[in-house]
């Protein structure tokens, strides 16, 4: 509801208007959503968890932006902060997220008050969660969960809302008579598709999907992805798609942001990322997925494990696991700089004394 | 509604609220005078007895329905004259036939009434004369005879005395039941009461939980009560000395009963030792300091029963514990003190239990004090609370060590001693210890046939000697009929100066009714 846990909210009600220069500057880029310097901490103990650190990210109209990273690298924290759904100990400690709707004024989501937000919610900004079982209210019928939002956000009558809900379910291949079912009476795949239909209820411009298919089978996953693609083509919304399955993203995303230890370490077009990763982590990640086709060859994972975010390693957070680390990696934090068609936060391309191997040792193909 | 307003506003002086001490928190609508479960208020206020004795005045005769009695045939025949004014609450006359009917009724149905006694014949030569004959001299039954409660035949003839609950009694007493609820009985004075005009028009008897008794007394919500108010002088009287009164006249004594069928209590030295080890002054001060005092060693109370005590024993009292003397007695029984413990020949410490009724917290408290006192003599005493029915059984079966209990006085010491010493009373009231002494039996036999005080006093002296020398039970302290009353609206209560009745609202019918009929409204109270 607010970007600070509710208990701090009272003190933050005063709102200052956006500065003009920022607006005009950003408007040029044509991005639907521009995230700048976003940091999120979990204040649960004396030492907070720095779950998202200084993230810059842009979502273009109509595109699918994939966000990938290992477990615990801050993907969910990032998207919940963006949609202003962060849960209590999470505090947004810096940054802005400028949202430019097709009509109306741009809004900085991170500073929008409750009123502004509820105007944006679901009509502009919808979300799909990982586990559909948990995302649907178990004690309400499926229909009711469509109807309440349609009535609240679109002002439809109950009857109209019911009809519309039926149509929406139809979009994802679920017969309208299932509106009367309780969530537990639906199969996992149907529930997941239902939540996607729900996300589209108010024809939003941006749909954030946090691992929407991890709980379903590959077959069902494929089917759901196909449906998302079709709906996206039809309605033209942008998708932020969070997953840790890089091979899946490469297939479906236009651009991919790779996260590691709370930071975006590389962003770029999907194909480029696959074929020509700029960051050793991206390369290593790619190589951790055995290919479905082609010759079998020995693969190795990434040695070590992701760092804790309470005390992320100094310098590049990946350096303890990186095979091509060199002098500055453990002290200087690399910035996200243009690399190829995208950007990467790595010292390798920018430092003169970087070890000049053709490629990072793991990233051979 | 808390506070004095509960008395009923402007008509305050017409009514009085009394705590009759209903057992349980609800009143059972049972006014059958032959049921021992009869609700309080059945006797006295409604059913009346023939006559009574005021033990506070040395057993003075108190006429009631019967105005006088005469013995004939050496105690084998008694004639009671009935008050010709006596009538029933429905207006009809109460005659000697009604008394005869009650006697026959109880006999025929074998009802468990406490005044029940054996007789040969009971007749009513005329409406106001009752004649009862016996096979043996029956002087000692006078109290039971006085307790006879006549009943109107027309109502009772169709009833089973065991089960009839008699919800709306027709009786001869000053009050009739006006309203019954499980929480309160409301009595209304009869205007056709035969004896006199009834001063208190409305008598309310609500249920009062013992925990709230003192509060209600203090607030004036109840004006007459007989509960066990702890430290009544400080807690009640001192709070308003002009109006709050507490008088606990002695009506009996508290005794430590030994089980005479069981070692080591068979040994008189043990009994004496135990008796010597008790500190009676301290005991008297437990709970209600200043209200009780140590008993005379004969078991009688020197202050109220003094005239029956043999001159040799007039001042035989043992207020303080005499541990050295006790130790000497125990030594005679083979007990020696070793390291603070009184140890017998078998090497074991003298140890026993005092059984006590579990509901009586104050009795348990008192027993615990005795236990602590005896502990000083090196004896291990535990108090064990048990259900009263179980206690009855334990007494009957002589299945206990020591009990502490009360014995009550009557018009003469005969009943007292018979209760306590008669071997035929083993296990029941109050020869709990199964005391068996042929000499005592003979003496009692002798006394039963004597009609005059001098003869009674002579035999009694010998019984007193048995009490002192053989200690069948150890006399402890007096017991008093606890009564608290408020003189703000009503005066004329019995007190030390005018002990015309025992004022406890649970006392005998004549005492209780005598009290209520003697009250006078305080003139100022009406204006309030």
């Amino acid at each position: 509801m607010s970007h600070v846990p509710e208990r701090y909210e009272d003190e933050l009600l005063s709102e200052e208007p956006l500065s003009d220069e920022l607006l005009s500057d950003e408007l040029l880029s044509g991005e639907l959503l521009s995230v700048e310097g976003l940091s999120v901490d979990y204040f649960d103990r004396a030492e907070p968890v720095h779950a998202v650190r200084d993230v810059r990210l842009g979502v273009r109209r109509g595109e699918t932006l994939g966000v990938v990273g290992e477990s615990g690298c801050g993907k969910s924290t990032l998207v919940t902060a963006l949609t202003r759904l962060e849960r209590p100990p999470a505090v947004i400690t810096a940054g802005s997220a400028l949202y430019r709707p097709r009509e109306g004024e741009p809004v900085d989501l991170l500073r929008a008050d409750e009123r502004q937000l509820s105007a944006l919610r679901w009509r502009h900004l919808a979300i799909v969660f990982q586990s559909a079982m948990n995302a649907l209210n178990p004690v309400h019928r499926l229909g009711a969960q469509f109807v309440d939002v349609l009535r609240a956000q679109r002002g439809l009558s109950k009857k109209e809302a019911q009809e519309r809900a039926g149509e929406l379910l139809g979009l994802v291949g679920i017969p309208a008579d299932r509106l009367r079912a309780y969530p537990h009476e639906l199969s996992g795949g149907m529930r997941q598709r239902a939540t996607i239909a729900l996300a589209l209820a108010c024809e939003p411009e941006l749909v954030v999907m946090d691992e929407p298919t991890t709980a379903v089978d590959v077959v069902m996953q494929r089917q759901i992805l196909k449906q998302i693609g079709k709906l996206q083509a039809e309605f033209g919304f942008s998708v932020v798609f969070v997953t840790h399955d890089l091979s899946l993203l490469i297939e479906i995303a236009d651009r991919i942001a790779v996260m590691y230890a709370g930071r975006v370490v590389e962003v770029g077009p999907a194909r480029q990322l696959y074929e020509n990763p700029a960051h050793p982590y991206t390369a290593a990640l790619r190589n951790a997925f055995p290919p479905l086709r082609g010759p079998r060859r020995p693969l190795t994972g990434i040695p070590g494990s992701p760092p804790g975010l309470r005390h992320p390693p100094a310098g590049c957070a990946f350096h303890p696991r990186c095979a091509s680390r060199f002098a500055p990696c453990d002290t200087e934090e690399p910035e996200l700089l243009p690399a190829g068609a995208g950007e990467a936060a790595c010292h390798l391309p920018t430092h003169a004394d970087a070890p000049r191997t053709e490629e990072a040792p793991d990233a051979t193909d | 509604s808390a506070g004095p307003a509960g008395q009923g506003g402007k008509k305050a002086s017409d009514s009085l609220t009394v705590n009759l001490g209903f057992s349980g928190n609800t009143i059972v609508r049972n006014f059958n005078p032959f049921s021992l479960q009869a609700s309080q208020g059945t006797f006295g206020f409604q059913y009346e007895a023939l006559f009574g004795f005021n033990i506070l005045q040395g057993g003075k005769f108190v006429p009631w329905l019967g105005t006088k009695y005469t013995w004939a045939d050496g105690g084998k025949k008694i004639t009671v004259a009935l008050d010709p004014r006596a009538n029933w609450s429905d207006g009809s006359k109460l005659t000697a036939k009604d008394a005869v009917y009650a006697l026959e009724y109880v006999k025929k149905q074998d009802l468990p009434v406490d005044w029940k006694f054996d007789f040969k014949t009971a007749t009513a030569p005329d409406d106001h004369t009752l004649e009862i004959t016996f096979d043996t001299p029956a002087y000692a039954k006078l109290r039971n005879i006085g307790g006879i409660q006549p009943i109107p035949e027309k109502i009772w003839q169709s009833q089973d005395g065991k089960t009839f609950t008699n919800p709306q009694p027709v009786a001869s007493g000053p009050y009739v039941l006006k309203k019954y609820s499980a929480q309160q009985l409301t009595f209304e004075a009869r205007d056709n009461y035969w004896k006199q005009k009834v001063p208190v028009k409305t008598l309310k008897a609500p249920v009062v939980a013992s925990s709230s008794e003192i509060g209600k007394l203090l607030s004036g919500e109840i004006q007459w009560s007989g509960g066990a108010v702890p430290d009544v002088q400080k807690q009640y009287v001192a709070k308003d000395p002009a109006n709050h009164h507490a008088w606990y006249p002695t009506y009996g004594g508290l005794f430590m009963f030994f089980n005479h069928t069981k070692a080591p209590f068979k040994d008189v030295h043990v009994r004496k030792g135990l008796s010597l080890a008790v500190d009676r002054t301290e005991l008297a001060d437990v709970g209600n300091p200043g209200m009780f005092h140590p008993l005379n060693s004969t078991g009688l109370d020197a202050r109220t029963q003094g005239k029956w005590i043999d001159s040799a024993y007039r001042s035989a009292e043992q207020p303080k514990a005499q541990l050295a003397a006790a130790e000497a007695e125990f030594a005679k029984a083979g007990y020696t003190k070793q390291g603070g413990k009184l140890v017998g020949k078998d090497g074991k410490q003298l140890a026993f239990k005092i059984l006590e009724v579990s509901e009586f917290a104050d009795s348990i408290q008192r027993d615990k004090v005795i236990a602590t006192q005896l502990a000083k003599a090196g004896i291990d005493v535990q108090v064990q609370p048990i259900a009263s029915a179980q206690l009855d059984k334990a007494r009957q079966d002589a299945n206990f060590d020591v009990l502490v209990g009360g014995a009550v006085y009557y018009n003469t010491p005969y009943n007292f001693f018979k209760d306590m010493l008669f071997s035929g009373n083993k296990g029941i009231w109050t020869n709990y210890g199964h005391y068996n002494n042929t000499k005592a039996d003979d003496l009692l036999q002798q006394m039963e046939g004597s009609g005059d005080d001098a003869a009674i006093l002579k035999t009694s002296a010998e019984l007193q000697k048995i009490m002192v020398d053989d200690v069948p039970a150890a006399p402890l302290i007096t017991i008093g009929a606890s009564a608290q009353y408020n003189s703000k609206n009503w005066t004329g209560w019995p007190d030390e100066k005018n002990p015309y009745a025992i004022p406890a609202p649970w006392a005998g019918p004549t005492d209780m009714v005598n009290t209520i009929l003697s009250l006078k409204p305080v003139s100022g109270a009406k204006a309030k």
Partner: protein
Amino acid sequence: MTAPVVPLGAESAPAATRKGPRLGRARYFVRRLAFYLVAAWIAITLNFLLPRLMPGDPASVLIAQMQGRTALSGDMIASIYRLFGNPSEPLWDQYLTYLGQVFRLDFGLSVAFYPTPVWEVISAALPWTIGLVGVVAVVSFLFGTAGGILAGGRAGSKLDSVATPGAMFMTALPTFWIALLFVLVLGFQLAWLPTGGAYDPDLEPGLSGAFLGSVVTHAILPALTIAMGWAATWYIGMRNMMITTVSEDYVLLARAKGLSKGTVLFRYAARNAMLPSVAGFAVNLGNVVGGQLLVEAVYAYPGVGYLLFQSVASVDYPLMQALFLMVSLSVLAANFLADSVYGLIDPRARETGS
């Protein structure tokens, strides 16, 4: 050959199982019912065995006690033996006659309230308990739960930081001791409220305003005493459930949908968080009948709990036995009801075969 096309509707429900679920549900229900019948039978049997297993031969104590008070007819003695055990009869025969007597609800006469039949004594006390404890149960549930919803919905708010430690403290206090304190302070020292009984005995029981007012003022202290502990319990349970529920994905989704705060809090979070409490509440209703033994005793409130207290004090075995049976059976009934009704609030519990 054309492949059989799978119609979309085929996903909706496995048609072949239409008959199945109902049968399954019936069997499930029958099993629950059987369980409660077994439990009832065990309660009844326990009631039979208790006095027979206990030391002190209650039957003869009872007979001795009754004989001290009234002349006992042969019938009554027989009845006492039936209920409390006759050492001379084989246990099995005793059991059968006992069962017969139980089914006729014949528990004999109360000792403490002789000669009132036990059931009459109980039925006089029952309305008071049901009235007092029942109202308190409902009210404390509503208050406790509502407080828990508000506090749990906004963990860390003022309400939460004040009420939660308070409630924790409340649950740690022995209820009868609170009753004692209330009696001392509110009853005696401030004399604000009556501390004994159920109404002013001067008043005519009826529907008069004065009488009802008196009933209410007499009920305030006992009610408050019981309600504080219960409400605190409900509060804590609800708050913790709420905190857990509020961070469920479906609540987050409801927030994401831009629904109003109230809708999110109540329709989404509270409704789900309440499920365990509601289940607990129904079970708790069974305890209503048992009353709040000690609280009723402290306030001398003429309900079932106090009755039990009195029956214990006056060793009224017939009354004790009947009370125990009655309380047991009501708890069973309430549990059975709770089991059966739970499906109404939680659709997952009324499973249709999947």
